[in-house]
């Protein structure tokens, strides 16, 4: 059981990492691209735009959250 849990945790960290919203947003963007493409719209532009928004949003959340003492020390460095 311990090994199964470690294995699951490894893959969760590997794919999802620190911000699950990014992974969920990517899945949504890929699904939407597929839907549009199969409806006759060549939506090549959608994924780069989605990546830009998801990355900027994730960084904004990360830099606005309350930070620990260690974080604050690295702020001042």
């Amino acid at each position, binding site marked *: 059981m311990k090994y199964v849990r470690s294995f699951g945790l*490894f893959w969760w960290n*590997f*794919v*999802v*990492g*620190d*911000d699950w919203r*990014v*992974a969920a947003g*990517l*899945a949504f963007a*890929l699904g939407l*691209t*597929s839907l549009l*493409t*199969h409806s006759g719209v*060549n*939506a*090549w532009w*959608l*994924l*780069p735009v989605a*990546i*830009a928004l*998801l*990355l*900027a949003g*994730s*960084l904004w959340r*990360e*830099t606005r959250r309350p*930070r620990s003492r260690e974080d*604050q020390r*690295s*702020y*001042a*460095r």
Partner: protein
Amino acid sequence: MSTSATLVLLGAFLASAVEMVEALTIVLGVGIVRGWRSTLIGVAAATIVLAALVAALGPALRVLPIETLRLVVGALLLAFGLQWLRKAILRSSGYTPMHDEDESFRRHRAQAAAAGREEKARLDWYSFTVAFKGVLLEGLEVVFIVISFGSAQGRLGLASAGAGAAFVLVVGAGVLARGPLERIPENTIKFAVGLLLTSFGCFWGAEGTGVDWPGDELSLLGVIGFLGALSFLLVRALRRQRLVLVPAEVKA
């Protein structure tokens, strides 16, 4: 050599080099303090597991239709690459401390010195397990990158050659230096790798959904340029934001 082939080779080389530098730091930290026999047996055992994984996964992936493969690989590379890029932007803008290989080496060495001695199967169990885990975990990332880069582009040999070159270079430099490779600009390389992984993920992920990129493979350069410019702007914006926030936080 085509644009995408060059980028596959470069991406596999840089990503593998970064992971191998980290694995080398762990192995050196343990081996120098506790001896080499058990450490190297741990390295060999992890290498065998990784080789078995490549042997099993490589042919299995050839059975999948290329569109499905590109969608799955693209999605995984995107998720994985964006984590690297996000971390690299946070480091470059000063929100997260830079990765310090020398500090990491000292930490591993101190932990190895403090750990108790337990013998199992005539092996120093600490050295064996730390070396095994370190090489296996860093190696899994190399395997993932090489297989995904190689299989989605149909150039597994080229991606493996990139990883092989990184292995020779990193291990060779490690043997010569007899210490961690702290002079390698690891943070810069990680930024470049994050950019390449995310760009390839975007390109293949979209292709997997049926998109036709304008300009075909050349648009990959456009994606790299777009994400590179975006990252540069985000680093600048976060640096400015941090300069505004720091005085207020220091006062508090």
